[in-house]
């Protein structure tokens, strides 16, 4: 054994836990140093300050944490139950799938910033809004993968069950449900941090207890250590929940799902069929909107019906101008943030494919960071980058960057082994391999995250505007909610929903066009 080999073996002999501990210590030291150096800038709280704050407010923080956790857990349960039920209905009744998927997306795009205050009026004091918002924050990210998992069953498995003359229920029990299980676990894993986020947003809207309440208080008082402490606690809880569900999945020996997200619905054979579907979704949305309000007898004062919003927007020119201006301001920040996040995520994934050594260092970090709720980080980022455009753009980009990176990595890893071998046989350069083989394999995952990034971008931009910058439609919604201008609030919600649906349609159309060339198998059903 050469000396070098012995040295390498010795390094490997150091227990992994110890190496990780050393890394953590280094990071903490660097953080402390950075905080001390930049103390005058008043941006970063040092770990020592955070510890100090946590120690001196341990009781308060612990009680707040438990409150938020309990609300998040209940929202997690109800949201996932709803998501899984919806997915089952969509798969068992394929005719409803398109409509259900559209409605689920629309509801998911409702800005929490606006739904929070409305739910607060609806529920009054108490934990209702927190639980509802937590449920709203998780159901879509469970619905989508579970639906894909239930549906993404090879033809051969379907034929097998059919060849014994057995029908839908056997298929569901023997094939679809077991096939969907890994997808469900992946969905639940993403849902855990999201539920925490939803519960905190619910608490922003005027709860009495919880981490969200403390965050608002700390932000108002410009209490830097307190803000950081809460962010660290929220992030820690999210990462822990994310890791726990991942460990559970490994315990069940589930193979990770092949693709996390669905291909877009195939293009209708006739142009008018697509339009008819869109129109149907619009009509059903409006009917549900109005129907639910009438059915529950919600007072017209705060529960505006579609026709109220329509009349308001048509008659009040000043309000219309104010709303459109705010929307334009928001979009001018959300769009660059969206593109930056997608570009950076896909770019880094490709760079890591060229330099695989780096990826083992970066990926675990990315997966961990992905699970940190944006609410925890938004105030910190805006605090660091200022209340100008850069801060908001960065919040949006960061929110999208990590999921895109992880999804694109999955996509790159799905390049067929045999295709890679062909490139290896000709000793093709990594760049050649990337462009010739891996890029095409990455595209479906990239587009899937581009679609999922739309609600994420809306959530990020409105939250940042609301909590920190005080501009754009997020701030507008917060203002009008506090002055009970419910006409404006509902108009803003409707407009955001419309913008999200349009953006989603645009991305899906682009996706279909490109995948039809590069990955036609993804569009087959």
């Amino acid at each position: 054994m050469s000396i070098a080999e012995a040295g390498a073996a010795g390094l490997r002999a150091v227990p992994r836990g110890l190496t990780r501990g050393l890394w953590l210590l280094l990071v903490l030291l660097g953080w402390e140093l950075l905080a001390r150096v930049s103390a005058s800038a008043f941006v970063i709280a040092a770990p020592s300050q955070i510890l100090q704050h946590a120690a001196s407010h341990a009781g308060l923080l612990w009680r707040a944490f438990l409150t938020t956790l309990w609300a998040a857990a209940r929202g997690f349960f109800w949201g996932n139950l709803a998501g899984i039920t919806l997915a089952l209905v969509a798969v068992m009744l394929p005719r409803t799938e398109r409509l259900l998927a559209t409605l689920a997306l629309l509801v998911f795009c409702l800005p929490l910033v606006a739904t929070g205050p409305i739910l607060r009026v609806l529920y009054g004091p108490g934990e209702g809004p927190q639980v509802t918002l937590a449920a709203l924050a998780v159901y879509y990210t469970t619905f989508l993968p579970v639906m894909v998992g239930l549906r993404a069953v090879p033809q051969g498995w379907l034929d097998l069950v059919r060849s014994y003359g057995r029908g839908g229920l056997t298929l569901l029990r023997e094939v679809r449900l077991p096939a969907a299980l890994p997808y469900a676990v992946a969905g639940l894993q993403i849902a855990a941090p999201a539920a925490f986020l939803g519960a905190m947003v619910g608490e922003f809207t005027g709860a009495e207890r919880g981490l969200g309440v403390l965050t608002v208080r700390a932000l108002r008082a410009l209490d830097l250590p307190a803000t950081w402490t809460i962010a660290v606690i929220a992030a820690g809880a999210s990462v822990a929940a994310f890791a726990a569900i991942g460990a559970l999945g490994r315990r069940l020996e589930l193979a990770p799902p092949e693709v996390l997200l669905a291909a877009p619905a195939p293009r209708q054979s006739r142009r008018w069929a697509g339009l008819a579907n869109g129109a149907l979704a619009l009509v059903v949305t409006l009917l549900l909107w109005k129907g639910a309000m009438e059915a529950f007898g919600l007072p017209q004062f705060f529960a505006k019906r579609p026709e109220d919003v329509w009349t308001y927007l048509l008659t009040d020119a000043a309000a219309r101008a104010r709303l459109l201006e705010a929307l334009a301001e928001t979009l001018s920040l959300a769009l660059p943030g969206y593109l930056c996040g997608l570009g950076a995520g896909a770019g880094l994934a490709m760079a890591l494919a060229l330099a695989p050594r780096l990826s083992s260092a970066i990926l675990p970090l990315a997966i961990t960071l992905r699970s940190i709720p944006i609410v925890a980080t938004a105030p910190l980022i805006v605090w660091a980058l200022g209340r100008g455009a850069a801060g908001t753009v960065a919040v949006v980009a960061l929110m999208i960057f990590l999921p895109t990176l992880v999804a694109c990595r999955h996509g790159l890893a799905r390049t067929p082994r045999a295709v890679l071998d062909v490139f290896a046989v000709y000793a093709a350069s990594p760049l050649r391999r990337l462009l010739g083989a891996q890029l095409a394999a990455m595209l479906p995952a990239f587009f899937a995250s581009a679609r999922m990034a739309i609600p994420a971008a809306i959530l990020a931009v409105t939250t940042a505007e609301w909590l920190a910058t005080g501009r754009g439609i997020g701030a507008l919604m917060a203002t009008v909610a506090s002055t009970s201008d419910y006409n404006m609030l509902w108009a803003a919600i409707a407009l955001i929903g419309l913008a999200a649906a349009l953006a989603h349609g645009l991305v899906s159309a682009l996706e279909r066009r490109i995948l039809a060339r590069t990955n036609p198998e993804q569009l087959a059903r």
Partner: protein
Amino acid sequence: MDRRAGIAEQNRDITLEGVAKRFGTKGRLVEAVAPIDLVLQGGRTTALVGPSGCGKSTLLRLIAGLELPSEGRITIGEETPAELRQRAGLAVAFQDPALLPWRTVAGNVALARSLARMPRDGAAVEDLIRLVGLSGFDRHRPAELSGGMRQRAAIARALAGLPELLLLDEPFGAVDELTRDRLNAELPPLWEARGATAVLVTHSVTEAVRLSDRILVLTPRPARIAADIAVTLPRGPARDPGSEPFRATCAQVLAALREHQLPGSIAAQ
């Protein structure tokens, strides 16, 4: 009543009357199977051979009722394929083994019994697994097996439900030569002894001659019947691939295949 006991006495002939299959929509229509009239005798084994992509598998799927014919009708005895499937009288060994990855080999084989609404029988499952040479692998998941082993598991699964009609789509395509030879000798008695009907799709002329009572040579797409060759060799030593009558039958099948190959194929040049 034991529906699996007296198969032989009933009429189990597979009758195809003017059966044709087209895929796709207007403008991009692919004619897979040209109108075919055919009777496959019950209780016998028929092999379908022909060039790749000629529609052999489609024909098999039509008989299984997994595809519906664009024209014509198919009956098996007095029943439609759907009716036969309803009472689990049919099994398919698919070209792509289509094993469920979360079940073990034994679990996959047992699944067929449960799908066919038969009681659990661990011993029967074990016997089948031994017969296809997978003893010791019954607790393994499909991902841990080679391609040939997966195909053997799929054959065991197809046999597990004691089907009256067994449809085999390239069942031994990925199985190594020696194992294939052994399976060719040991498996057919399993269904022949029960009087079950079998339809086999294969690329291998030797295999077709070895296993079947009748060989249908199909033309390139759309599939038509180019030749209908009865294999009269008695079972047993006469079916040794080295024997003179065996080689003569193979030559007959090959000649029919050559006569009907695609104009652009390698052999035609």
